[in-house]
């Protein structure tokens, strides 16, 4: 029998990837990939943030001449597109990548190579779309990209090509990530983690991943048809040839509304992870939160027409979607009241992560309430496409995604880096962002009610909009300073931050049962759980400590994970995990060739990508010697 030290050493050798530059391109470690997602998404966030600042500066005064209409239209298009596709989802998938396996007690994602592939595709697609700025022809049709404005007749330039090709390319990454999350959650949970014991953050990621699997194809079909219209003279959206521009809208919003929840649900999952820890008690209504998560994901597919209430559809059709749009607020309310009940019946610890959660709670309620308003058809018809909508969805998306992400930065970064961020700077950052945010977006409700349409590069004075716009611009700069504070705080913490230890917050879930940062194999012994709060159970701790000294909870092979059953997480067998490899990067590069060639109409280049992809996939599927029959 090997000693504990020897076993741990063998595990470390088996899971640690070789140092050096080559390994940097070959990694399949979910933690490294998760970190890359977070970093890359932060970069895109900064870009989209600066785009927003530029727009707010232009709108500070009426008839401002800082930015012309052409540039402004590119800015607001790329701001929305980047925030939604290149920041929010990848950022949350990044946290998911890092923490889902840890929270499940697993050593990696189910498909580590697919995971690496997903990151590379995300990176390439994001760079491809933003490369459009280099030639001054960024997408300019809005993130919703309505035809016929974006069709071959009215925007023949390459701007929209970056949008359609870029999003089709990016869709591969998002779909791959979603499938990976689903299978990981189904099959790699720690023994004992039956459906009713899965951490709420993982539930949120699971519901989100399912939503991606069903929602993204609608966007892909839409973009593929637009691509065919634009490049090859098809007529899907051309009313003169039997097509219909409204078809674009249906498919777009069939994706687009679930996508709102694809962004918000995992972020709400972060809130559900933080609230119990900082209320020092189990969540009141674990069941209700799971219900809310899943119900929201399902109902989100039946509300898309509320983006189209002004299109002139029959009233009865609209009423069905109005009904769903109203009822979907019930799961939202359930979550709010579950968090509040937990806070009321716990003992709060008001550290920075919780401060962001409290700020989130109050502001998110406002966004939810205006959401109810948009479900009511006549009111929606009055204020849709006005600044009231801009206010509403920033109260939902900025508050619903960015506040929880900031909370997660303060809550989880210590696990990732091993060091705590500074509390005072964190609180300063919170107050700047919280105050600045409300100054930025609350006035937009009013300018919208006063008749100001959205997506305008300027406006005339004397319509009652001037003061509200100036207030918004001031708020935007406050928010920017708030982000700067957190960024400085993070950099400072890397060197000077207080060491976090395994469990700085007294956490409840499995990521706190290992060191900070975790070893490459995450857990030496496979944990066994009995509730959704394993670390708060003494029996769990006793056993984990015991298991470290014995061999019984350790897999025989080193580079293995334990596969368990879908519903009750009973152990099935150990499975060997793949080693680091360059293949995912090669396949991603093959796709880059194919999509890049398509974008610039160099079809030889595009065709050259296909054999690269096929060869890469063949190498991917080829079994190692020890995996073949003897």
């Amino acid at each position, binding site marked *: 029998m090997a000693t504990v030290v020897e076993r741990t050493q063998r595990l470390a050798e088996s899971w640690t990837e070789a140092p050096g530059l080559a390994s940097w391109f070959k990694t399949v470690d979910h933690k490294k990939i998760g970190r890359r997602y977070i970093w890359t998404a932060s970069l895109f966030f900064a870009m989209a943030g600066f785009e927003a600042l530029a727009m707010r500066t232009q709108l500070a005064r009426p008839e401002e001449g800082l930015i012309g209409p052409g540039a402004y239209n590119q800015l607001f298009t790329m701001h929305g597109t980047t925030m939604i596709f290149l920041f929010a989802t990848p950022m949350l998938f990044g946290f998911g990548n890092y923490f889902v396996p840890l929270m499940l007690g697993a050593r990696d994602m189910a498909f580590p190579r697919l995971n690496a592939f997903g990151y590379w595709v995300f990176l390439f697609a994001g760079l491809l779309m933003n490369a459009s700025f280099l030639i001054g022809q960024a997408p300019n049709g809005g993130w919703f990209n309505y035809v016929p404005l974006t069709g071959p007749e009215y925007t023949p330039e390459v701007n929209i090509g970056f949008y359609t090709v870029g999003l089709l390319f990016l869709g591969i990454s998002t779909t791959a990530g979603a499938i990976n999350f689903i299978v990981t959650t189904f099959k790699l949970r720690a023994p004992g983690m039956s459906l*009713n014991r899965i951490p709420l953050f993982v539930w949120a990621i699971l519901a989100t991943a399912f939503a991606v699997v069903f929602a993204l194809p609608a966007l892909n079909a839409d973009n593929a048809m637009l691509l065919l219209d634009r490049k090859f003279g098809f007529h899907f959206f051309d009313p003169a040839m039997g097509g219909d521009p409204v078809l674009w809208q249906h498919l777009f919003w069939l994706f687009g509304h679930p996508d709102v929840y694809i962004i918000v649900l995992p972020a709400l999952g972060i809130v559900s992870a933080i609230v119990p820890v900082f209320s020092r008690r*189990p969540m009141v209504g674990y*069941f209700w939160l799971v219900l809310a998560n899943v119900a929201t994901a399902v109902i989100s597919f039946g509300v898309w027409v509320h983006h189209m209430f002004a299109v002139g559809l029959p009233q*009865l059709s609209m009423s069905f979607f*109005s009904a769903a749009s109203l009822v979907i607020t019930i799961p939202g309310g359930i979550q709010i009241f579950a968090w509040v009940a937990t806070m009321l019946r716990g003992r709060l610890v008001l550290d920075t992560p919780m401060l962001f959660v409290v700020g989130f709670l109050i502001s998110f309620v406002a966004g939810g309430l205006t959401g109810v308003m948009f479900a009511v058809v006549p009111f929606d018809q009055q204020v849709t496409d006005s600044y009231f909508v801009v206010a509403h969805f920033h109260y939902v998306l900025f508050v619903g995604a960015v506040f929880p992400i900031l909370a997660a930065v303060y809550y989880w970064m210590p696990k990732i880096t091993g060091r705590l961020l500074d509390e005072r700077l964190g609180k300063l950052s919170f107050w700047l962002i919280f105050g600045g945010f409300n100054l930025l977006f609350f006035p937009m409700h009013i300018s919208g009610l006063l008749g100001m349409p959205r997506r305008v590069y300027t406006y005339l004075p004397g319509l009652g909009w001037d003061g509200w716009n100036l207030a918004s611009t001031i708020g935007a700069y406050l928010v920017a300073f708030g982000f700067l504070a957190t960024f400085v705080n993070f950099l400072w913490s890397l060197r000077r931050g207080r060491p976090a230890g395994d469990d700085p917050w007294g956490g409840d879930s499995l990521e706190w049962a290992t060191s900070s940062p975790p070893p490459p194999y995450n857990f030496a012994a496979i944990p066994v759980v009995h509730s959704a709060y394993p670390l708060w159970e003494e029996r769990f701790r006793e056993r984990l400590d015991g298991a470290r000294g014995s061999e019984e909870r350790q897999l025989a092979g080193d580079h293995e994970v334990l596969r368990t059953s879908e519903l009750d997480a009973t152990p099935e067998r150990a499975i060997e995990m793949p080693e680091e490899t360059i293949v995912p990067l090669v396949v991603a590069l093959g796709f880059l060739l194919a999509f890049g060639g398509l974008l610039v109409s160099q079809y030889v280049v595009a065709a050259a990508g296909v054999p690269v992809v096929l060869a890469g996939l063949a190498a991917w599927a080829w079994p190692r010697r020890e995996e073949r029959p003897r």
Partner: protein
Amino acid sequence: MRSTAELRRRAAPILLWFAVLGGAAAWTVHLLLGWGLEEIACSPVSASPDVLGVSLTIWIGALTVALGAVTVAAGLLAYRFWRQTGTTDPNLHIEPGGSDPESEEQVRSGRTGFMALFGLAANGLFLLMIVYGGVSLLLLRPCART
């Protein structure tokens, strides 16, 4: 009798999934058919507000009743499963000290009860939406537009 019991045992997982997802499926059908039929009946090329000779009001009314019934059935089934398993929510209390290891049966029963309760609540939400759809039929004329 043994064969009945055997049948029941085999049907149980399928029935449980119906109890969990029945309402969601019914609502999806209600929404897509209701919307699709109205799009067809009220399209600019349609002569009258009916589909296959049956008026839209009857279509949607019948859909509401039938799919509402499916949802209620799923809810009742969920209630039965829930009663059978009882509430064994492991997340309500944190055990202060160590206890005996759980049996697989305990884990499964807790999970089944959880799913059943989920079905019960979810079917309620979906029923609400289907009923709302029926209510709109009382207030709005088919094919009327703003």
